[in-house]
């Protein structure tokens, strides 16, 4: 409690200075009056008593001052004096201040920018009520160790009460063609269950939610996002009542969800679940649920495994390797980007350390040049702690200025980061420099000021009066200053950290190059991709869609410059793709009992000419042609790896395959094509089963049209489609964009790492230069003497360079040790390159050593040109 009382008194003395002073006057006056009274009682006259009392008390002003001193506003007063003094000192050496502030600004700014991304994406809770109780549920295939979607019946078994879930919903959908006011476009649309609104505890900003009755009857209604409402109808209120057309069905908008609500990522339209599948074996849905109050994740996991065990008993063949997982929704969203973001945070932390080490080095240098000033202060009675405090305040002021400039950099940096970041990084729109980020910057600024400033301050304050006051200070014959080894150690540490970063950046760069250089199995150059969707509901409509597509392909093919055109459901890096089990006639039976023995493949539907358009070689047999229609014999083409894995050297041609995509019919294998990296460039090609799109019309009314052309035919091709049917929504892209999107995350981290490594290497090089040129200046006299005694310029250079080389070597070796030890943290993010990649190591070591040695060569050469007469006369 004493501390509170003390604080209150000090605050009072500070804030109510006049009142406190008045009280002091009154108190002293009282004393004076008492004294006068006493003297008069002893028989003095009033005047004499007054005079005597004044004499006895002495100087009233001094007394008042003495009392005021005791009140110790001093600590604060002294602090503000320190700050003013620091500002003066910093202003007096503008070169030092500018370099230090910019260095710090770079380090702090980069940290602030990355932190604002980390905070928004990883640290902040999702913007839903009780978001930490929302979990995402998945199937987990124990045989292949991979997660998968849920089947409808499995989902209902998992959430049937009693269960840990207060509410739950499935969702399925994606970019679907939606028509509003005569205009069709692709909009992220999801079908959801009645539990959807309760899971996220939604309140509409206009209109109402979908009622339970509407869910039950699958009523054609829709909810839209605030963004969608404003874009299409002008305001959220006006959206209610308007109709959207989805798959030929008009759906009135009944309500608008709040602006921040974005689940699933980027969703804009929600409708009652409209694609029901009762299949237990195909995973069609993803699901989220809200846990009941008090239910733990462990209890949830236990429930899921109980259900899984029950299903395993009931359906031994299909559910043998099926488990279910529930993880917090937040974790499921940021899982992929988490390691990347922490990696970047670590990298940027290293940059800050290098920057701070550089500034600490400058401070040490200054301590040497300021030795006289500090010695004078010490001689005048400043205690060591007083000097340390002064120096620390200087650092804090310096770092705060650096932090402020860094903040300005961060504002710009955050914009750039958001622009660079992969579009599928969740919650990117929430990234901003806010109060939390400001606090982070403040803590980092002051923290680094204390950590990196304390040591130089302690060293500087250990003033040897004799030495410090002597003219000339530390410049002896073997000068270099008493902080020489400390500065050397700092520079070595800088080089070590810069090496870690450079090596890391090198690895990621090599990995990215490998990723872009990998043989995809297809070509992306000069390939336009048009995504088009033809509304269809009935079988007739679906068959008609195929006819329309055929016309579109034919007409686009007639455009000048077009070399090939084809359609596909399941483009590499595209959103539509399917996969599952299949059976080969004579090898397997396509029945439940066989499920765990059936091979697995990706399912893709293509039009004739797809492989030509993609540049994929036909290994054997033929491509699909225009006779492969719905009524004709079903046909299929297999990829080389499927042929290898399943037919083991036998020719697959003429054999028959069956899968559960839609029609369970035997399909005759008519061709074998080369492997493609359909999943993404980093994943090796998997077995693929290609089917003729006209034979599977239910999955083929929404296609990617690949156009291989020598010129840009995008506009012309869109016109062709519009001429055939203006109601077909078309989205334009290129195959290169699809590929690029699939490597967006590696590109993002590689780019930033290279940038940070560059900054760190530049700072470390500057650090080496600073230390070496200082050492060279300090040893001018010595060098002059040596030259006068017959040493050549080369001798001097090699002598100085040897010192530099020792620092660099120490730094490089310790950096390598650290980097190799830390290597396993990044191993999982690398593609096609080992952590101990010789090229990357040699490159990083070579680059950094070369830069650092050059930085020490310049001052060495300068020192070797010294005029011995001039150098010796300076002494």
């Amino acid at each position, binding site marked *: *409690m*004493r501390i509170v*009382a*003390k604080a209150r*008194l*000090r605050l009072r003395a500070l804030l109510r200075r006049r009142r406190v002073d008045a*009280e*002091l006057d*009154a*108190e*002293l006056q*009282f*004393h004076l*009056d*008492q*004294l006068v009274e006493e003297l008069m009682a002893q028989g003095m006259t009033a005047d004499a008593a007054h005079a005597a009392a004044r004499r*006895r*008390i*002495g100087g009233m002003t*001094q*007394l008042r001052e*003495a*009392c005021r*001193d*005791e*009140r*110790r506003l001093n600590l604060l007063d002294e602090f503000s004096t320190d700050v003013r003094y620091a500002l003066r000192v910093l202003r007096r050496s503008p070169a030092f201040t500018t370099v230090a502030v910019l260095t710090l600004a770079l380090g702090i700014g980069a940290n602030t920018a990355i932190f604002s991304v980390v905070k928004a994406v990883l640290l902040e809770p999702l913007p839903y009520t009780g978001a930490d109780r929302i979990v995402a549920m998945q199937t987990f295939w124990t045989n292949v160790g991979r997660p998968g979607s849920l089947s409808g019946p499995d989902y209902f078994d998992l959430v049937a009460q009693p269960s840990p879930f207060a509410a739950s919903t499935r969702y399925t959908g994606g970019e679907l063609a939606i028509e509003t006011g005569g205009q069709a476009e692709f909009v992220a649309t999801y079908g959801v269950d009645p539990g959807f609104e309760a899971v996220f505890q939604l309140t509409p900003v206009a209109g109402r939610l979908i009622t339970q009755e509407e869910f039950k009857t699958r009523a054609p209604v829709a909810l839209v996002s605030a963004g969608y409402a404003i874009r299409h109808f002008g305001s959220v209120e006006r959206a209610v009542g308007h109709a959207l057309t989805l798959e030929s069905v008009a759906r009135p908008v009944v309500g608008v969800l709040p602006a921040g609500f974005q689940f699933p990522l980027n969703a804009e339209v929600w409708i009652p679940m409209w694609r029901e599948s009762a299949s237990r074996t195909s995973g069609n849905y993803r699901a989220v649920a809200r846990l009941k109050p008090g239910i733990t994740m462990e209890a949830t996991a236990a429930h899921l495994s109980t259900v899984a065990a029950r299903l395993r008993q009931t359906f031994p063949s299909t559910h043998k390797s099926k488990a279910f997982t529930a993880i917090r929704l937040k974790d499921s969203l940021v899982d992929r980007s988490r390691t990347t973001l922490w990696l970047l945070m670590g990298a940027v932390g290293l940059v800050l350390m290098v920057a701070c080490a550089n500034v600490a080095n400058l401070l040490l240098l200054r301590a040497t040049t300021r030795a006289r000033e500090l010695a004078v202060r010490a001689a005048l009675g400043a205690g060591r702690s007083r000097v340390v405090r002064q120096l620390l305040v200087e650092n804090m002021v310096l770092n705060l200025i650096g932090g402020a400039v860094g903040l300005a950099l961060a504002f710009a940096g955050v914009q750039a980061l958001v622009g660079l970041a992969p579009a599928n990084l969740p919650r990117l729109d929430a990234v901003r420099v806010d109060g939390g980020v400001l606090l982070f910057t403040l803590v980092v600024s002051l923290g680094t000021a204390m950590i990196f400033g304390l040591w130089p301050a302690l060293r500087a304050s250990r003033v040897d009066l004799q030495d410090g006051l002597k003219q000339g200070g530390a410049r002896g014959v073997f000068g270099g200053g008493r902080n020489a080894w400390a500065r050397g150690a700092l520079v070595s540490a800088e080089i070590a950290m810069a090496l870690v970063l450079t090596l890391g950046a090198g690895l990621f760069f090599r990995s990215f190059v490998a990723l872009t250089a990998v043989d995809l199995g297809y070509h992306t150059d000069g390939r336009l991709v048009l995504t088009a969707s033809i509304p269809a509901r009935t079988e007739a409509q679906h068959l008609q869609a195929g006819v329309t597509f055929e016309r579109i392909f034919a007409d686009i093919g007639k455009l000048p410059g077009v070399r090939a055109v084809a359609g596909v459901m399941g483009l590499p890096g595209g959103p539509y793709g399917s996969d599952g089990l299949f059976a080969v006639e004579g090898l397997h039976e396509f029945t439940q009992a066989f499920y765990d023995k059936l091979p697995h493949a990706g399912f893709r539907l293509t039009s004739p000419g797809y492989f030509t358009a993609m540049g994929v070689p036909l290994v054997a047999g033929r491509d699909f042609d225009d006779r492969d229609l719905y009524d004709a014999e079903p046909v299929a083409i297999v990829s080389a790896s499927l042929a290898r894995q399943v037919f083991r050297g036998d020719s697959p041609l003429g054999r028959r395959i069956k899968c559960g995509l839609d029609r369970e019919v035997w399909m005759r294998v008519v061709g074998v094509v080369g492997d493609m990296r359909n999943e993404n460039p980093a994943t090796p090609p998997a077995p693929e089963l290609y089917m003729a799109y006209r034979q599977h019309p239910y999955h083929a009314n929404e296609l990617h049209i690949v156009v291989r052309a020598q010129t840009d035919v995008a506009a012309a091709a869109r016109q062709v489609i519009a001429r055939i049917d203006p109601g077909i929504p078309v989205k334009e892209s290129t195959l290169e964009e699809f590929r690029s999107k699939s490597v967006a995350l590696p590109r993002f981290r590689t780019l930033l790492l290279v940038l940070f490594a560059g900054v760190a290497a530049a700072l470390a090089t500057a650090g080496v230069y600073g230390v070496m040129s200082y050492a060279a200046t300090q040893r001018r006299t010595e060098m002059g003497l040596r030259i006068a005694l017959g040493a050549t310029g080369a001798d001097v250079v090699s002598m100085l360079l040897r010192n530099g080389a020792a620092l660099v070597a120490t730094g490089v070796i310790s950096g390598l040790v650290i980097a190799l030890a830390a290597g396993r943290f990044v191993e999982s993010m690398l593609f096609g390159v080992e952590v101990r990649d010789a090229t990357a190591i040699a490159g990083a070591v070579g680059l950094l050593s070369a830069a650092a040695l050059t930085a020490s060569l310049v001052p060495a050469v300068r020192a070797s040109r010294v005029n011995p007469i001039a150098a010796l006369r300076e002494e």
Partner: protein
Amino acid sequence: MARPTDLVQGTLDLLILKTISLEPKHGWAIAKRIQQVSQEALQIQQGSLYPALHRLEQQAWIKAEWKPTDAGRMAKFYSLTAAGRKQLSKEVESWTRLSTAINVVVQEG
């Protein structure tokens, strides 16, 4: 009357704390009281009394209150806080130790 003794460094705080430990007193009364009890041996100079009072107040060992005196004038009365009471016993103890030690040395031989 002997010449008033210079106070041993740091003992003024002890004297003040002790003097107001029984009842709150204003500065004048504290000085008078010390003078009186020490039989005029200790003269407290205003120049050191008031800064000392303010120092002790800032340390939160004593607290001040404006109250009327017996004569009806307003004066600043100081009294001990709980922390001050602890400090007093500490200072008494260390004073006793010191003075005993000095006595032993002085009276030896």
